[in-house]
């Protein structure tokens, strides 16, 4: 165990050293290949220009290679694999897509993903906004924010254990040790097996993600609320607006951009939701979502890369509009540079 840690730390040191060496050597190499002679001003300026042309690519080289191998190439390869059979050898045309359209589990996953998309981003943004507004108005607001923000640090798997315990059901006459069933019982209801109730169990899984992500929405929206110019609110107060009107008519419209960012960020996260479903139900009791179905097909019966690729492409297609929007926003912001 100790030797494993030592070797990990060794990798860190060696890795950092190797990176530093690469950049240092590439810089030196540039100076040797394109010398800048003092006596020949013309040659010097030509070589200085050449250095300036090559240098950015040396600096970006390792990053571009990593991005290329791990992100750009796979996107293309996944697209191509979706037209091949399970082993990725024989071309099968659109057979995998046809399979997906008629596969019950695939449809179920699409349905559940839409359900998640409809509920989770809206709920997180709404709760985040409400909590941001409320906590900004009290002296211990920062402590409260910390507590709501805390689940962000917890892994989806850890959160699943936490909530599985809340949803715990015990049969027969045993004492209910799950909080939810104990509450239901104290109000005179019957304990339920929450995570195996078809349809509704999706919402019990969503609660976990909402619990985790509301803190994120709250932090971003709280910063945006603080950026609202004072005068607009003063003016509304003078005009006799009440708190409710100020919130909906003055504050919310001014932070639409931020709300959109929060919404889309959580939307992307929801599309990729995997850990929670895997650990809570593993897709049983009709809770399957696309990411889990894709993972399932990657390994099911030795793996089917064609079908798996089709499912991945559906997720990618859903993300693409947001991706384009992000790129446009970034380009707009960089107009000045």
């Amino acid at each position, binding site marked *: 165990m100790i030797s494993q840690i030592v070797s990990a*730390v060794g990798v860190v040191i060696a890795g950092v050293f190797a990176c530093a060496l690469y950049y240092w050597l590439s*810089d030196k190499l540039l100076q040797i290949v394109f010398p800048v002679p003092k006596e020949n001003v013309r040659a010097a300026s030509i070589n200085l220009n050449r250095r300036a042309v090559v240098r950015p690519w040396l600096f970006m080289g390792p990053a571009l290679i990593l991005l290329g191998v791990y992100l750009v190439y796979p996107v293309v390869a996944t697209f191509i694999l979706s037209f091949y059979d399970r082993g990725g050898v024989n071309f099968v045309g659109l057979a995998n897509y046809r399979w997906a359209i008629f596969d019950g589990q695939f449809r179920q996953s699409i349905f559940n993903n839409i359900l998640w998309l409809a509920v989770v981003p809206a709920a997180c943004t709404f709760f985040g906004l409400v909590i941001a507004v409320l906590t900004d108005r009290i002296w211990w607001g920062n402590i409260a924010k910390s507590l709501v923000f805390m689940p962000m640090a917890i892994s989806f*798997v850890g959160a699943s254990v936490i909530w599985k315990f809340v949803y715990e059901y015990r049969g027969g006459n045993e004492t209910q040790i799950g909080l939810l069933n104990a509450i239901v019982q104290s109000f005179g209801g019957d304990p339920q097996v929450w995570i195996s109730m078809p349809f509704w169990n999706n919402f019990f899984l969503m609660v976990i993600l909402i619990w985790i992500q509301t803190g994120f929405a709250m932090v971003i929206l709280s910063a945006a609320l603080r950026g609202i110019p004072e005068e607009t609110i003063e003016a509304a107060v003078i005009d006799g607006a*009440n708190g409710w009107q100020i919130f909906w008519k003055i504050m919310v419209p001014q932070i639409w951009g931020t709300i959109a960012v929060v919404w889309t960020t959580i939307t992307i996260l929801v599309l990729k939701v995997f*850990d929670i479903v895997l650990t809570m139900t593993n897709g049983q009791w009709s809770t399957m979502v696309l990411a889990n179905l894709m993972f399932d097909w990657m390994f099911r019966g030795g793996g089917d890369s064609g079908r798996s690729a089709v499912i991945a492409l559906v997720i990618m297609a859903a993300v693409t509009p947001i991706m384009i929007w992000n790129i446009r926003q970034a380009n707009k912001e960089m107009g000045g540079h």
Partner: protein
Amino acid sequence: MNAAASLRRIGLPRLVVHLSVLLICIIWLIPTLGILVTSFRDPAQITSSGWWTAFTSASQTTASRLADPSAARQEGSNYVISGSVFEEGQGGTVRAFGTRVAAPAEFEAGQPADLGDGETLTVNGDGSYTYTKNGPFEGERGRRVYLQVATPPTFTTQNYNTVLTSQGIGQAFVNSLTVAIPSTIIPILIAAFAAYALSWMEFPGRALIIAMVVGLIVVPLQMSLIPLLRMYNEIGAFFGVPSRSYAGIWLAHSAFGMPLAIYLLRNYIAGLPKEIIESARVDGASDFEIFVKIILPLSFPALASFSIFQFLWTWNDLLVAMVFLGTNREQLVLTGALNALLGSMGGRWEILTASAFISILVPLLVFFGLQRYLVRGLLAGSVKGG
């Protein structure tokens, strides 16, 4: 005065705000508190009562039998049986007792109970009892009594001992560290150099690369898994090495974190004052020197933000670890181990809660220690979805 402060003058009554925030805090904290408390409880108590009762004495209804009538002593005109309702080694405090199963807590402990027929029974808190009758006791067997016994809360660290040693959580903890530390540090330097080039060097195609980086931030991991898994298997087979290794996952995590790292660092580095960099150039410093001596120290806040993100993300990740490191017991990270335990130890909450708490302990420490940088990073790069 800020926006929130002016709302305060006219808004809802303060008390309602305080109470709602308090309620929200409780709702948000309680699930985590549940596993923390449970992880320190005795396994028998976990299954017999909810964790929210852990700090009050657990109240249980049990049955016991008094001594046989043959044990009765005669005291004047009365016959008396005495002893303890507790078995050897059993402990607790008797709160109440009764003689009928329908009313197991009919009488208060310590008070003599008139059972009719000239019989009186007193059960004291410590379990000792006196059973008196104004005539000889009849029957063969001792009388059955029902007790409401309060057992004092007991807390133990035994669960942690168990999971760390015999459930493989100790090894998984080390594995998680082995994955997370290099995966956090290695990408930083690579990304920082790229970010510097993208901020302070002019070259054709720069805008295109920035657009590509922004686009790649949201590309779902799922798109990468199949081709990379095939590639890893081929490389493994070609060189005769295992296809699932730490080196493989370090590179994968570094690459998956790269777009966000470049984006965050570029935003920050591009915003550094132009004068500093230009005066260094005039003084004849090379780009490498400028980067090491000026850019790196000045971008510390951005570097810290990104490393916290990347550490939390690699520590909490399950999918990448399952695909690139496999589910072998020796190489299982904490999230993977927890997932395996959920399958094999479902219902053994002392094991699950202790393991879960160990797995969330490090991220929570990082979170509370470095929250400032985390928030800053979120605000700077809120385009990636985790």
